[in-house]
């Protein structure tokens, strides 16, 4: 087919058409949310989303406090200490599989594990623990990938100078991997902000301004979902939905820019 001019042109135009469709999708979804969001935005709606922003921040805080040390320590052990064998490949398989599990399964698990088995209340805290599990594989993967880019000779030089493995990890490996770790954290924040299915059964419902992490609440995304399910749920109804969507989209864009910025900054710092 590709030996004739017709076939070549056909394929070429199919390619251009795909690209045009892709660009159209991108422009449509971003344009729609931004334009509609700006049209509906007003000060009252922004003020009414304050409790949601606070509880979303609390959720991010809890999930990161739990998951960052676990993720970084696990990555360090797997890359620097573990002898490659059966057990470590089983552990690696299980962590890799976590990435492919759908959010709703995490949601089911969080309900039976944190609420029914450990008897926690439906709260930001329970949702934070659930999110810590969801982002753990992201953090591990990013840290591991960063450790892999360190040249073997740098680690060996540190060991040859008489540093212990532990000193090498804290003084050579971790500082060198900082950009990978930071980007893992930024990606995780994006995931936490947008997640609904994994926490919808354990976060409870919004009940005024959140004063403690042990209260039920809602995040920007879970609240947006509730409004869309039942437009009379919130005062501003669908208007509020548009401004919440706009806020979420802006956060996603800012986080993506931040990732690029971190990559650039560290590249410059290393001088290549």
């Amino acid at each position: 087919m590709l030996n004739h001019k017709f076939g070549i042109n056909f394929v070429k135009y199919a390619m251009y058409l795909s690209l045009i469709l892709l660009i159209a999708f991108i422009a449509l979804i971003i344009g729609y949310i931004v334009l509609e969001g700006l049209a509906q935005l007003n000060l009252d709606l922004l003020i009414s989303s304050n409790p949601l922003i606070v509880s979303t921040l609390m959720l991010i805080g809890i999930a990161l406090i739990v998951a960052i040390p676990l993720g970084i320590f696990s990555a360090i052990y797997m890359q620097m200490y573990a002898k490659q064998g059966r057990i470590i490949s089983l552990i690696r398989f299980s962590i890799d599989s976590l990435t492919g599990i759908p959010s709703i399964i995490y949601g089911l698990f969080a309900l039976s594990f944190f609420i029914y088995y450990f008897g926690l209340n439906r709260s930001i805290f329970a949702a934070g623990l659930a999110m810590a599990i969801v982002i753990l594989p992201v953090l591990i993967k990013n840290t591991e990938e960063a450790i892999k880019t360190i040249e073997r000779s740098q680690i060996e030089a540190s060991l040859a100078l008489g540093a212990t493995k532990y000193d090498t990890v804290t003084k050579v490996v971790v500082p060198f991997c900082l950009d990978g770790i930071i980007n893992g954290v930024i990606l995780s924040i994006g995931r936490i902000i947008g997640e609904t299915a994994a926490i919808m059964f354990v976060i409870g419902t919004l009940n005024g301004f959140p004063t403690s992490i042990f209260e039920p609440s809602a995040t920007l995304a879970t609240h947006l979902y509730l409004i869309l399910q039942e437009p009379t749920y919130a005062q501003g109804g669908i208007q509020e939905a548009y401004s919440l969507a706009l806020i979420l989209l802006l956060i996603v864009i800012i986080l993506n820019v931040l990732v690029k910025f971190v990559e650039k900054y560290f590249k410059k710092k290393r001088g290549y």
Partner: protein
Amino acid sequence: MLAKTKKSEKKRLLFESLYRLSVIFSGLILFIIIIFIFASGFPALKEYGFFEMILNKEWSPNATDPQFGLLYMVLATIISTLLSLLIAIPIGVLSAAYLSKMAPKKIKKTIMFFVEILAGIPSVIYGFFILKTLVKIIYDNGKYIEGVSGNSMLAAIAVLALMSLPTIITVSVTSLDAINKSYDEASYALGANTIQTIFKVDLRAARLGIMSAIVLGAGKVIGETMAVMLVSGNAINFPGNLLEPVRTLTSNIATEMAYASGLHQSALYATGIILFILIMILNYILLVVIKRGGTSDA
């Protein structure tokens, strides 16, 4: 001096055992999740039987003689996954080929930046977008037909196709970028043009990466919940009409969990188990594909 070394030695031991504990914990999570999901779904599976559940088409959890048949939902999940991939695979792979092999560097960078933003957009927003656009269009044009409310399998397929694109594109671009430059040069030296090189050399050389891109996209589609729930209408129908509402496995869980208890709740966990099994089958297919491709390449 000696005291200080002792102290740092203690610190070293402490942290090294923390590293080990963390990795053990991380490795155990998957098994804890499996145990809890299966234990919670077991009562329903035991009462009704696994095959009875996936072959029965009736789901009426609140009836006096409750039925927990998932057949229509399993079919809706599989069919909407396949159809959405049918749309997303050509668009995704062809765009990836252009971006990796033909696009000027600046254009590639810009588009990939936006593709990454697409990947980060929460699923609720995708659902919102389709709800306010496609669902509305379907409703406006078809409201005189009985059963057409806008919320439909077509809307679900559209939202799923859209959501799988970023995964398919980024993974495909990465694997196309990784092809050894000498392949392309050899192809050009033999007189092939760009299109011939892309389709006869590059896409073949990168086929494992593209296969994984597709399977990863499929995994995302099967497990997607919130976006589908907002646009699919959630009524349990045989998925035979694109304009009629359907319910997928994921939305079955999310819709009913809020008020379910007892055996009904267990049946929702069993729905999760079946979803889990579908995803495991998919991962197994990926593994087989990679193994086969690997040996035939060598």
